[in-house]
């Protein structure tokens, strides 16, 4: 593959990732975006005043941080389903390019630990899939702001994976 082809492929995949999150109204409402390095995603929660939960501190709403963690976990799981199809190419890849994405994994439960209040600025999150089962996946996800080693919150959850054939 030439350098130009590789670059085109990367752009196509990045555009697909943008489309995946833009297809969900609530992700647009919170203004969460994803960037990727290969198959690893990093979520970015773009700050706006409407995300504030405590105007006195001021701090992000705890629910917004939780939702951001949940979205990051679900998007990573969905991307993990998409990734092998992209690599395989053919009809599976073509369907994805038409915007036919797998269904979002359903959250069974989510436990969130809050370490410090979220400041009025962008936040980032990354998920680690601890166990990717056929039916259930267990995911750990962490959010931070200025410093990666000072997370503002972490969560772990179980997700029901969508069946094959959409």
């Amino acid at each position: 593959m030439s350098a130009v082809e590789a670059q085109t492929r990367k752009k196509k995949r990045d555009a697909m990732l943008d489309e995946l999150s833009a297809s969900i109204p609530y992700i647009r409402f919170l203004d969460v975006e994803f960037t990727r390095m290969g198959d690893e995603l990093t979520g970015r929660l773009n700050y706006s005043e409407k995300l504030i939960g405590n105007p006195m501190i001021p701090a992000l709403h705890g629910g917004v941080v939780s939702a951001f963690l949940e979205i990051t976990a679900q998007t990573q799981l969905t991307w993990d389903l998409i990734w092998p199809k992209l690599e395989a190419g053919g009809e599976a890849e073509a369907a994805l390019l038409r915007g036919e994405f797998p269904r979002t994994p359903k959250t069974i439960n989510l436990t969130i630990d809050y370490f410090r209040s979220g400041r009025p600025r962008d936040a980032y999150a990354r998920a680690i899939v601890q166990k990717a089962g056929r039916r259930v996946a267990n995911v750990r996800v962490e959010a931070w702001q200025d410093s990666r080693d000072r997370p503002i919150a972490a969560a772990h959850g179980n997700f029901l994976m969508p069946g094959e054939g959409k």
Partner: protein
Amino acid sequence: MTRIHEDGYEMKAVPHSSELGMRSHKADPAHAIISVAYQDNLVGNPETGVIHGGVVTTVLDNCCGLAAMTHPDLKGMVATLDLRIDYMRPAKPGMTLWTSCECYRLTRSVAFCRGVAYDEDERDPIATATGAFMITAAKTKFEN
């Protein structure tokens, strides 16, 4: 049975609660009830129109916190320490989301809360929540 104020009150002091259109309804001490009307921009599944789990979590977090805040013995503010959400079923598209939460135990440093999210019937929950909230001194910044 708790008395519910039909219309409730807008939660204007909190920007995000206001943005979601949360309304706080008349509740007993240490018990809060919040509603959020269905909105297209809160949808998590565009095919079915079901609202996103993150909205349910946000309202439950807020409602548990409010239950702790209205506890008659609370002196100070509260900050969420942890929250566990179990999702039983999707919310019904087009319906108002309700949450009902109570602070069932208050110690010197921690408020223990639990609650449910539902649309038509509290006994048929969308999700349940259990949370612990740290009690912080009034007007003091949460440790950061």
